[in-house]
């Protein structure tokens, strides 16, 4: 297998929680720990044998400062370990861990992320990630901003409400084979949340966690029968101001995909972090995905969207299909910020059989 990077790095294990509307009986560490145990057990590694640990979460979801320290007890942080944290989706924690392995400072990495949306009102909480001068004082919530994007797509003739409903229905049907999904099977499309988006176009709000183990070269081959090699990974950001961007396209996703080598060869699977049905339309176009590609066979974010974990889960789901021999070459995508502002694209490949 060829790689453009200094070292070959693969996803060798993936685990996630059963995503639920609320998990009041569990503290953050109590929710994360079973997932950590599961992912480590899959590799046979003990916590102390991991070279680097990186997590993703958000203080605004938890409503308290330095909230990520609450879950460090779950990774065996004593005696001291090499550890870092990103205040965003765990997909970016995975990127940091991948860089750490590329530098040769670690051969293995544990990446985990989690979010409990249930303690607060996540639509209001997410307004606090907006520009504080021009946007945040107006409290435009995440559904409202996605709805502006959806209307722009409808006006451009790229989709309509019926096509959007079909995306939600297809996702929730696919989630029928995903035991971790929060929503699966037929779900009423419901009334408008913010027109043109109906309940069925929006992600469920829930709590959940995910974890991935990365390993380099022969270590990956030793830990996993069919490693999911990361043959390309890149992330890009674009202007914060929605009025500066073409909301019907995602240039940052396309640029990241180019740099990750997505367009060098076809993919059979795409795990897209599209919390709103309309965003799948934008991402399919940006990534040039045709009908032959299985898009979100896990159900995607319309079936379970635990904040800060849903992007890492896309990478994990894509890797798991390669582990199971169901995919040869897959693309995984993660997003953060309003209307797909920041995007990460990873290309994962199995060894030729």
């Amino acid at each position, binding site marked *: 297998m060829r790689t453009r990077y200094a070292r070959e790095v693969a996803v060798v294990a993936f685990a996630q929680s059963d995503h639920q509307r609320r998990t009041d009986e569990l503290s953050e560490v109590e929710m994360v720990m079973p997932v950590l145990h599961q992912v480590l057990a899959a590799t046979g590694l003990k916590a102390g044998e991991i070279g680097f640990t990186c997590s993703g979460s958000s203080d605004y979801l938890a409503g308290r400062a330095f909230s990520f320290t609450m879950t460090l007890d779950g990774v065996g942080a004593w005696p001291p370990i090499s550890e870092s944290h990103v205040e965003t989706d765990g997909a970016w924690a995975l990127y940091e861990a991948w860089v750490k392995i590329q530098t040769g400072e670690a051969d293995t990495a544990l990446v985990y992320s989690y979010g409990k949306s249930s303690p607060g009102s996540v639509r*209001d909480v997410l307004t606090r990630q907006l520009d504080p001068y021009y946007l945040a004082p107006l409290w435009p919530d995440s559904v409202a901003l996605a*709805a502006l994007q959806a209307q722009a797509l409808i006006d451009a003739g790229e989709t309509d409400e019926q096509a959007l409903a079909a995306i939600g229905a297809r996702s929730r049907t696919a989630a029928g084979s995903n035991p971790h999904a929060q929503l699966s099977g037929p779900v009423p499309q419901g009334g408008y949340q*913010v027109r043109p988006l109906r309940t069925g176009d929006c992600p469920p709000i829930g709590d959940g966690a995910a974890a991935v183990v990365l390993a380099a070269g022969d270590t990956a081959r030793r830990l996993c029968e069919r490693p999911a090699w990361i043959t390309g990974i890149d992330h890009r950001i674009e202007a914060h101001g929605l009025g500066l961007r073409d909301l019907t396209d995602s240039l940052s996703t396309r640029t990241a995909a180019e740099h990750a080598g997505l367009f060098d060869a076809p993919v059979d699977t795409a795990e897209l972090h599209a919390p709103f049905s309309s965003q799948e339309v934008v991402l399919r176009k940006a990534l040039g995905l045709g009908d032959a590609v299985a898009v979100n066979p896990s159900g995607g974010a319309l079936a379970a969207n635990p904040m800060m974990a849903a992007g890492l889960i896309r990478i994990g789901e894509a890797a798991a299909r390669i582990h199971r021999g169901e995919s040869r070459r897959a693309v995984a995508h993660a997003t953060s910020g309003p209307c797909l502002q920041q995007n990460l694209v990873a290309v994962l490949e199995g060894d030729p059989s």
Partner: protein
Amino acid sequence: MTAASPPEVLRAPLVVEFPFTRSLGPVQSAFLTGLREGVVLGVRTSDGRVMVPPAEYDPVTAEEIRELVEVAPTGTVTTWAWNGEPRPQQPLGTPFAWVLVRLDGADTAILHALDAPGPDAVSTGMRVRVRWAAERTGAITDIACFEPCEGRERGSARPHDGVFADPVTGIVAEARLDYTYSPGRAQTAYINALSERRTVGERCPSCHKVYVPPRGACPTCGVATTDRVEVGPAGTVTTFCIVNIKARNLDIEVPYVYAHIALDGAGLALHGRIGGIPYDQVRMGLRVEPVWTDGGRYPDHYRPTGEPDADYDAYKELL
């Protein structure tokens, strides 16, 4: 408790409020001061486009941009979304449309609310104008909202020096978020026991250390701690400091002693104030017990038990 019964978990309201004071750069200052004066300013980017609302750096080249222009308070909707159930703190309390509006003379769009009777009265391409707030302070909310209007696009951007008397140089970004906090299984058990004036920890099944207060996991072994253990009530001072600064709203005479206290049976020390003994007589190894006040939800302080001091070897691992 049977395995089937759901655990009783504590819950309490948690409010996070943060009035961040933020300073403005020259361009944002001119824009927000302009709103206070009923004037909408934009900035010209390096490729000649007019950006409203303005930024101080070009979004394409990252060059500093300073050339201010005035645009019209009328514009065209570029996209919209009907908000049938306004949320608290949003610009209008009645159903409204979120809109991106390209003001006449501008090349980019501004986000705000549009006051309209219903979704049938809103469309992309419709003409709207600014409705100014009755009282203006130099904030984006000085635009109360947009409202529909008639008329074609008028005017192009005109140069503006951006100079106003008494410019706005900062904003206070106020926010309040409401949560329902739940401490989870382990800490709920700890807090419930405290209400009976007992202290419970949890033992790690792997290294057998007893954590107080328990958080549900052993940080050394990374495993769940489920075996509940009552510790104390008495304990040993493992280390301490003398506090000489009076904390605001705290009715305690200085100097006083704050100490780490290893409760009997606990695998690590928790902290508390030492009372009932002159501050300069507190020492490592001193045996202490909790003192509860009426209605107190945790020990007010710890006082000497009168027992002989603990041997250093008995607590040196807990320092």
